[in-house]
């Protein structure tokens, strides 16, 4: 029963995505909507990303120092470990899990409300491909802007650690900055960005899917929003394992 339901949902999702990735009715309208979505889903997320990243970067640095207090460990390893944690997991997987809550619920509730208030029916009646009109700009905008958020996250997390070195005497600033630059592997940046693109696609498409097929009223919109966040979080974790195996091994 569970398998057949999952397969049927997956089939429905594939048809939904096929409809979303058709050619837009008007490119001008598509570009305008995509820019609006960049602002709504991407730019509006920057303050949240900055706040979370600064604090997590700071906490990572403190934790690293406290848990690796060993005379055999060089002091710069705190900076090195903080940088690698941020590059490998925090700026993509953890950030996207957080954004699944903010952006995912926003998308699902917006499209779900449009469904229950017959706005999607109105689009269909006019002859507009509602999936393409509503969903494609969100996917393109969020996937396109995700690397920017990811880079913001990397920068501000490292800044968070840097602030710890300035305002505490746990580690010297010079050792932290040396650690940040030591044994740098460029591929880690690309690996993080590739993961963030995949996760952004998961968040935007899964949330849109749950919102689009809402039936009922306000209660069901809330439920769809929750389901969207839960499902996209699970998929992010699953693809995190797969991508790590594929890209890092």
């Amino acid at each position, binding site marked *: 029963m569970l398998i057949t339901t999952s397969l049927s949902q997956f089939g429905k999702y594939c048809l939904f995505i096929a409809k979303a990735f058709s050619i837009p*009715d*008007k490119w001008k*309208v598509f570009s305008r909507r995509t820019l609006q979505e960049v602002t709504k889903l991407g730019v509006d997320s920057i303050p949240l990303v900055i706040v979370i990243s600064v604090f997590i970067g700071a906490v990572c640095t403190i934790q690293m120092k406290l848990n690796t207090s060993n005379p055999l460990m060089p002091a710069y390893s705190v900076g090195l470990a903080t940088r690698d944690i941020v590059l490998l997991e925090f700026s993509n997987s953890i950030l996207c899990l957080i954004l699944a809550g903010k952006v995912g619920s926003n998308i699902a509730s917006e499209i779900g*409300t*449009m469904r229950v*208030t*017959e*706005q999607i*029916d*109105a689009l*269909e*009646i*006019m*002859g*507009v491909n509602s999936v393409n009109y509503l969903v494609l700009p969100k996917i393109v905008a969020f996937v396109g802007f995700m690397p920017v958020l990811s880079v913001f996250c990397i920068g501000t997390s490292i800044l968070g650690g840097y602030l710890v070195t300035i305002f505490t005497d746990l580690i010297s600033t010079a050792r932290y900055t040396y650690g940040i630059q030591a044994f740098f592997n460029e591929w880690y940046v690309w690996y993080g960005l590739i993961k963030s693109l995949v996760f952004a696609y998961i968040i935007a498409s899964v949330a849109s899917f749950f919102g689009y097929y809402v039936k009922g009223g306000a209660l069901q919109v809330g439920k769809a929003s929750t389901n969207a966040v839960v499902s996209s979080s699970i998929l992010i974790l699953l693809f995190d394992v797969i991508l790590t195996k594929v890209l890092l091994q």
Partner: protein
Amino acid sequence: MIEVKNLTKSFDGKTILHNVSATFYTGKTNLIIGQSGSGKTVLMKSIVGLVTPEEGEILYDGRDFLKMDTRQVKDLRKEIGMLFQGSALFDSETVLGNVMFPLTMFTTMTRGEMLDRARFCLERVNLQGAEKKFPSEISGGMQKRVAIARAIALNPKYLFCDEPNSGLDPRTSILIDELLHDITHEYGITTIINTHDMNSVLGIGENIIFINKGHREWVGDKERIFTTTNEALNDFVFATRLFQKVKHYIISEDNKNK
């Protein structure tokens, strides 16, 4: 003209429409009436293609809607305007943005031309001055009028209205009815209105189709509806306390005269 022939639709094994046939005339306000749950919304949604019937034919001026390919359906939909029960205005757009939406999507008009057309439609529904407001900032009656303006923006040949008076006070209901009636005659539109409001029936019922338990039980106009012998329709017409009182009054006056 829209013709519906032997339309049948079921949901989860329960038949909602049983071989319904009806004709909706051009330049007339065609009303589908019936109690809640009688199948009138399903009938309207089938005609516009939001629901796919199992059997039957839907002919838009002779063109079989159910046999059209995706391209043809898309083209036909540009000839359709629809007013939804809850107005279905786009929350993120202003009143002017809502009316301009179909023009932006389906015409090659310049922005100036689109603005002129949208303003003309808003004037037609007496809504000049509300252009910059958002749907949440205007009343239910105004929202209906914006929805009508949006529906007529592309000069549709067919106009569908799902319970246009729901949630409105009697005076605003009459205004909306009159507006729909005037627009229908002015532009020669085939208008189909789904309603259970007897005020609308008496005011603008030029061609009335009564649906009861998924069957088409009666066809007529506002003049003939009071003299019908159809029991279900009689029950529907005289369901309100006001009409019951009027009926009793007329019967008692008749008896006195005898």
